């Protein structure tokens, strides 16, 4: 069905406008990374590459970036495993608490980050007696990242039905073989989409991280948070952010290349 030409035109204009609004702050970040003023006064009086040089020397930023990537990768991995298992379990067993479980999985993301943050902080420290550190960040991130994988896989499984798996078993494949040869390959793009979102979610998370990170580990957002409040460091943060904006295109582009179905299911997911 074609929408009427008038409506299409209105929508097109609106979309363009909105994209401009969405990207203006990001462009500003990039622009400000060249702004000579340490406080990004507008309009920029003078442009400089100075901050880029400073940022290039910032081992703290690089280290934090590396921590963030590790955390995000691990959290994503855990969510992939747990999220897939959860959605498979939900489907197999028709136990009555289906709704309860799905609500439970949504809860960590649906509840405000600060609540999740202090709840986990409280649990790690006082209940479990864990030392805050790399592991606690990963676990905390995995807790709220599971939902993206879970939702994606759930939606995909629903669309696929149980027929393919039954066909596989009918042809003599055991449960594990069926998973390996049939279920998993068909879930792949949903998993990719879920992973992409999980990674993104973890990578930019700051509130929960604040409460679950120990002294030793700084993720990039925490580094940014700390450095924004350091004299003369804000422009460096801008450089880092600008780099992030540019870099973020890569994984998304890759994901898109890997599977055209991803964007579709990515939409179903956040």
């Amino acid at each position, binding site marked *: 069905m074609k929408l009427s030409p008038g409506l299409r035109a209105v929508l097109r204009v609106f979309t363009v406008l909105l994209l401009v609004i969405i990207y203006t702050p990001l462009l500003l970040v990039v622009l400000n990374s060249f702004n000579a003023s*340490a*406080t*990004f006064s507008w309009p920029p009086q003078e442009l400089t590459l100075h901050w880029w040089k400073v940022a290039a020397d910032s081992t703290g930023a690089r*280290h934090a970036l590396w921590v963030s990537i590790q955390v995000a990768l691990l959290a994503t991995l855990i969510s992939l495993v747990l999220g897939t298992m959860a959605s498979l379990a939900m489907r197999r067993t028709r136990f009555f608490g289906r709704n309860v479980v799905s609500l439970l999985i949504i809860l960590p993301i649906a509840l405000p980050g600060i609540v999740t943050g202090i709840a986990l902080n409280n649990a790690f420290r006082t209940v479990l007696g864990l030392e805050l550190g790399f592991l606690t960040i990963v676990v905390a991130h995995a807790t709220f990242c599971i939902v993206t994988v879970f939702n994606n896989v759930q939606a995909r499984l629903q669309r696929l039905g149980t027929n393919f798996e039954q066909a596989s078993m009918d042809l003599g494949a055991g449960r594990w073989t069926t998973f390996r040869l049939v279920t998993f390959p068909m879930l792949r793009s949903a998993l990719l989409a879920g992973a992409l979102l999980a990674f993104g979610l973890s990578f930019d998370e700051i509130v929960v991280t604040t409460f679950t990170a120990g*002294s030793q580990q700084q993720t990039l957002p925490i580094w940014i948070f700390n450095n924004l*409040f*350091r*004299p003369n460091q804000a422009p460096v943060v801008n450089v880092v952010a600008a780099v992030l904006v540019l870099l973020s295109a890569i994984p998304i582009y890759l994901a898109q290349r890997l599977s055209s179905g991803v964007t579709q299911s990515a939409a179903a997911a956040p």
Partner: protein
Amino acid sequence: TDSGDSSSDSGSGGFTAPDVPMKKSLGETEGEVSILAWPGYAENGSSDPKVDWVTPFEKKTGCKASVKTFNTSDEAVTLMKTGEYDVVSASGDASLRLIASGDVQPVNTDLLTNYADISSFLKDRDWNSVDGQMYGMPHGWGANLLMYRTDTVKPAPTSWSAVFDEASTYDGKVTAYDSPIYIADAALYLMNTQPDLGIKNPYALDQDQLAAAVDVLKKQKESVSEYWSDYLKEIQAFTTGDSVIGTTWQVIVQVAQGEKVPVQAILPDEGSTGWSDTWMVKADSDHSNCAYAWLDHMASPETQAAVAEWFGEAPANLKACDLTSDPKHCDNYHAGDSSYADKIWYWTTPVEQCIDGRKDVKCTNYGDWTQAWTEVKG
């Protein structure tokens, strides 16, 4: 105006510190130490390779230092309670709380070679000692000044009344520090304008005094553009003109002026609040030798100079003044000026026992202040 140095040297209003053992002698360093610091206090070159006094410390002592930063004193207290940090750079509004809860140990100043060079007006004060026993190594200090834009604020203010009773002159352009401790600024102002209230120490307020301060702040709020809590926000606001007058730190003034923002800062007639930071050691630290080494390192002239300049404050060790790259740094920050320092009421945690010596009333504690501050902001 009254001198800020009000309370006796005997320490804070009669509360007894928990019995935490003090270190008697130094031993082998343990190879690591974990540090909780204000941003900019413990730089290891990761932000800027030229700004680094952690690495020299590690080289010198063999203690591997890991640094975590906090953004408010309250956060520092919270983080200290996790027991993961061996040393902390505690401001006056945090230190007593740490002492009272037994989270930090008394410090044996005899074991610290640089202690002797510390300005005497920073030693044995309310916020870093109990009953004459030091609980840490003074680090640096600064005042909460009154900053204004010279192009819009005329004539130049001389009193805090510019941001309180006359705040409406700059309606919607006033700024203030975003923390319960800012109540003390209002109390200090009241101490001068309404002597009837009987405020002797802005950190010792009874219910009525607190209510009066809160009223002042609530009225002020009508003219406030925003409350600030970090440099960047404050500098930006003055640069863009979103704020034209309000409390500030010396470092902000320096940066803003460096950016050619037309601002000036003064220490108003009434005096002001301020902070003096102290390095403290965790009560049962497993790395106490490294912790002492860190304290000593931080008090050394070289480090003091580097920190004071990078962070923007007055060094505690005046020997540092010769080593700063800006020879006027100590003058700018009034480092050795004890009369200037005397006009400052350093941040101190409000507690139930009134630290001004009153015995007949109960003072409001920090929890009350937090709640009052929430109410002020509305």
